[in-house]
């Protein structure tokens, strides 16, 4: 009989995974018991259901849902992330005195609190879509909207984490910064882009606006929504760069790739700060 031999890194990995799932599970349990996440789920159930009930068909409801999602998930995600850091200060510090790696603790806490919020949005919106039959009829569009909402949740919770760790001792500053960042990314950014387009209207700007838009995660999600729902209008546009970007899969690939980058960078920054921070 062959002897099973597991190398050291394997044992180490198993140990880390065990710890991670332990932390994530505990966070899930504790959050699910809080009214917060449940309430958030119910809000999306009611919202989506009433959009479908009173608004008409699938595309209309999905687009209204995505409007709400693009505007509020970033705000809610960031506030939620930063609130967690502020409210669990003492507890996190207690955990930090336990014999575990800060890296593991960070991932455990981040995944443990961001995934319930993500699930709350996805499940809350998915249920009405399912019972109204939209999920089956417009499955691509539905899954896109749900997926993007989930992705935005993760991105903005991680940004909230980063701000919480950055402004660890100054809550007012932390919340203020969060609100400003939200206003900027959700509304002002596009206004600035429009302004630039008008000021420099005589120059070829297609490439520029594409690049600029990929620097804002909310715009990225919006562009992906647009590629799904407005592709017929986009195809009516004759600009060569736009046509290449939107027409083939380039747009989808680039936007999704950048969105993942937008998740990777804040989580990595959070991890860096968390590992080096004096609590």
């Amino acid at each position, binding site marked *: 009989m062959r002897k099973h031999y597991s190398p050291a890194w394997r044992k180490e990995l198993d140990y880390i995974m065990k710890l991670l799932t*332990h932390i994530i599970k*505990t966070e899930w349990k504790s959050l699910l018991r809080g009214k917060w996440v449940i309430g958030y789920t119910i809000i999306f159930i009611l919202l989506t259901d009433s959009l479908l009930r009173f608004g008409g068909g699938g595309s209309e409801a999905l687009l209204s849902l995505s409007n709400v999602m693009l505007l509020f998930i970033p705000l809610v995600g960031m506030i939620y992330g930063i609130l967690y850091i502020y409210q*669990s200060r*003492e*507890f996190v510090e*207690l955990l*930090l005195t336990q*014999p575990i790696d800060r890296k593991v603790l960070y991932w455990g806490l981040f995944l443990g609190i961001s995934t319930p919020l993500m699930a709350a949005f996805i499940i809350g919106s998915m249920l009405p879509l399912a019972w109204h039959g939209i999920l089956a009829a417009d499955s691509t569009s539905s899954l896109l909207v749900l997926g993007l909402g989930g992705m935005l949740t993760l991105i903005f919770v991680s940004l909230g984490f980063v701000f919480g760790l950055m402004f660890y001792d100054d809550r007012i500053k932390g919340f203020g910064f969060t609100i400003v960042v939200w206003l900027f990314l959700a509304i002002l950014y596009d206004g600035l882009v429009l302004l630039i387009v008008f000021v420099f209207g005589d120059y070829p700007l297609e490439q520029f606006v594409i690049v600029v838009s990929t620097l804002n995660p909310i715009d990225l999600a919006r562009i992906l929504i647009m590629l799904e729902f407005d592709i017929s209008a986009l195809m009516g546009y004759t600009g060569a760069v736009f046509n290449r970007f939107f027409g083939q899969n380039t747009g989808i690939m680039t936007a999704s790739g950048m969105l993942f980058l937008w998740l990777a960078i804040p989580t990595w920054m959070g991890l860096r700060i968390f590992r*080096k921070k*004096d609590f």
Partner: protein
Amino acid sequence: MIEIQNLKKSFGDLQVLKGLNVTIPKGQATGIVGPNGAGKTTLIKTILGLVKPDSGILEVNGTRLNGDWLYRRDIGYMPQVARYPENMRVYELLNFIKGLRDQDAVYEHELIEQFNLQSELEKPLRTLSGGNRQKVGAILAMMFNPDILFFDEPTAGLDPRSSHKFKLRVKKEKEAGKTIFITSHIMSELEQLVDHVIFILDGNIRYYGSMSQLLELSQEERLEAAIARLMDEPIERTGSVSKQSEMKSTPITLEIA
């Protein structure tokens, strides 16, 4: 054993630890005292790994701290402010910490019984009284039977009966040869629990030595008065050296008392 050499830490422009040197042998019970902002908390947090020193050497049981975390297996910490996730139940919190530590919680049941927490185990932590939350913190610190224990203002929220039980427990741990650190504003409590004192002022150790010696030198009956004198006396007047027994300590400490 904990050995600290020339430990420095600044937060921005504020220098909090200005080059501490101290060696604490195994089995010693030490009270850490000093005014607010003197550096007590930073010193403890540094040993616990919450704060990373700017320079200096810190060794715990022979392990040089360098971003490593395994040494914390030997440490139990009872925080001053006991705030836990609101919806977590007491037993869940215990299980959570047990899951994080790959160690046997040998004293779990004993401590629960000792602190009369059996009836609270099923309750969410938010419904617990402050005192009971403190007790949970004490259990978390001691249940894995670590060599080194930190208690940060441990009896602040406890009623006299619990406080008494807690002290008995600490004494027992001391008898068992544990290295114990206690910070407290209640000097009488320290008198009961510790035999050595570290007095920190302005980022330096102003006194480190046995309690009896401190009382003797300051010609005071009580620790509180002794400390008060230490704080009042300007540095110039503390010329009359003394002792400094077998322990290493900073030059400043040598000047004192």
